[in-house]
């Protein structure tokens, strides 16, 4: 007799898992035993993920998602809930970089960056916050950027969106805390990634390293470790915070 696969004990969603950091977060959460729903916009990440035990249920699902489409976000998240049950963790890693001096920036470019980096997070938070609040448990982590406190020229939209993400995190934390849900930001500094190449165009790589107390750029796995910690039992009293993973580059 065919058995209905059991829902996994813990499920997570990673929105925007196809980038360097998103892929590292996916690997970290798979290692923790989460059943995963991962979203991408163009291509899924090539990162190899260990398959957690799930009694037959598919442990890793990839879905294409345009985070700027609120209806699509709701549908993808509801499909994840149907497949794996209410998520214990939702990690928002989706983001775009478009470099342009403020005075030359097309409005379309400004809107696109804000729509993906900030409004997309809002779309996901609306579903995640409600589902987790009903379940009386959950961890939300938003990928911010330590660069938003640095003011990199050419990145007005990016910096504004990431600063907005921190404010969104704090308000979300204040609203859902009573239901046992936490919300935090992990804010990477200079991390080996395709995005760093774009962000770092105005100064040399060596300049960034020289101003970093730890004298190196970070690794995507180190950012993923910070996310991982925020999902542990031990991090249950941390909420509304921004955890910078920047080698100390922006401490003063």
């Amino acid at each position, binding site marked *: 007799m065919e058995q209905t696969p059991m829902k996994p004990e813990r499920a997570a969603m990673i929105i925007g898992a196809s980038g360097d950091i998103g892929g590292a977060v996916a690997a970290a959460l798979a290692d923790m035993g989460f059943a995963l729903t991962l979203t991408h916009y163009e291509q899924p990440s090539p990162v190899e993920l260990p398959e957690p035990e799930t009694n037959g249920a598919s442990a890793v699902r990839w879905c294409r998602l345009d985070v700027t489409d609120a209806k699509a976000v709701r549908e993808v998240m509801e499909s994840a809930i149907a497949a794996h049950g209410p998520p214990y963790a939702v990690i928002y890693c989706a983001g775009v970089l478009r470099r342009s001096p403020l005075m030359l920036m097309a409005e379309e470019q400004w809107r696109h960056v804000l729509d993906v980096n900030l409004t997309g997070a809002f779309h996901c938070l609306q579903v995640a916050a*409600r589902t987790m*609040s*009903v*379940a*009386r448990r959950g961890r939300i982590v938003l990928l911010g950027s330590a660069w938003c406190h640095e003011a990199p020229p050419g990145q007005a939209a990016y910096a504004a969106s990431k600063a907005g993400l921190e404010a969104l995190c704090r308000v979300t934390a204040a*609203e859902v805390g*009573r*239901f046992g849900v936490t919300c935090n930001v992990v804010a990477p500094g200079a991390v080996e990634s395709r995005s760093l190449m774009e962000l770092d165009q105005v100064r040399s790589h060596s300049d960034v390293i020289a101003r970093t107390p730890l004298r190196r750029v970070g690794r995507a796995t180190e950012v993923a470790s910070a996310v991982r910690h925020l999902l542990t039992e031990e991090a249950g009293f941390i909420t509304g915070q921004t955890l910078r993973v920047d080698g100390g580059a922006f401490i003063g």
Partner: protein
Amino acid sequence: MNNTIDMQAIYDIVRYALDRDDLETIDPETHLYKDLHMDSMGAVAMVVEIERLWGLRIPDDLISKLMTPKSYLDVVLDLNGAAA
């Protein structure tokens, strides 16, 4: 709190939403906003608790129209009947 859908259960949810375990002066027509000073965050707590207890999702566009315990009970009974 048990899972029976009745006015007492709604009163318990109001107390939970307002963080007022001591609240006794409440009846079906008590105005949650004018009489008990509930705000939108209280309304959020009401709908989340209703969904948690009974698995019923109150449509978003209805929430701001629910002003009294009776209006909440009516909606919950309606949704429960539809779900059955």
